[in-house]
């Protein structure tokens, strides 16, 4: 494999470490499962050009991500929500891929004094 492609592939598979308040621990597994389900829901809605469903799901995810300290989820969800309002399917598709990749790579460390990423 050419070195550039190899480096990109490696970067795409790197773990993302997020520090989360230890008191959230009982809720985080379901939180992550639900976000993955929502990616699937939004992908199906995008295929059907159902931008309203994409917007609603992204809006909920935007708030949930920040509440738990997953700021990256909130950033991506906000971009998806805005793109859904404007009906820009290409942006939604790109951001859903980013979100899916993030959810696969994220590794949570539970801290007594957390600082989210």
């Amino acid at each position, binding site marked *: 494999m050419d070195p550039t492609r190899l480096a990109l592939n490696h970067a795409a598979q790197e773990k993302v470490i997020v520090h989360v*308040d230890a*008191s*959230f621990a*009982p*809720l985080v597994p*379901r*939180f992550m499962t*639900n976000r993955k389900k929502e990616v699937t829901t939004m992908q199906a809605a995008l295929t059907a050009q159902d931008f309203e469903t994409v917007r609603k799901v992204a*809006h*909920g995810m*935007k*708030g*949930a*991500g*920040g*509440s*738990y*300290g997953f*700021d990256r989820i*909130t950033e991506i969800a906000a971009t998806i929500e805005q793109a859904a309002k404007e009906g820009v399917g290409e942006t939604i598709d790109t951001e859903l891929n980013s979100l899916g990749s993030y959810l696969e790579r994220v590794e949570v460390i539970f801290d007594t004094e957390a600082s*989210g990423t």
Partner: protein
Amino acid sequence: MKKQNGGEKGVVLLIEDEQDTADLVRLHLEKSGMAVVHARDGRQAVSIMEDIVPPRAVLLDLVVPYLNGFELLKAIRTKPGWEQVPVMVVSGDSDKGDIERMLREGANDYIIKSWGVGVIHHRLKQMLEQASMGQVA
């Protein structure tokens, strides 16, 4: 008969349609001794308001199904006995116009969800302390 406020620190009415967010807020508040009554949408919130005595505070999501935050705030502020209940709007949105309107129409505070549940909890405690001293706007 209306349900009484539960627990030493009273009941907080949480109006939030995103279940994971609601679970997190509930976990935090219950750990500090507050009881939480959760409404998943605007209709359920109005129904619960008929069924309970005024809570110590309301945490109100701006965007929930059936009735939005503005409509629910109006319902709270015009309901006898609920006029002085402290209301904190908790929203994923930071639109300046929405924030100003909610505060103008009677909300006591407005928190952005991305600030995290710790900030929500801290500001709620401040709001309750002010309310107990009669300082809530």
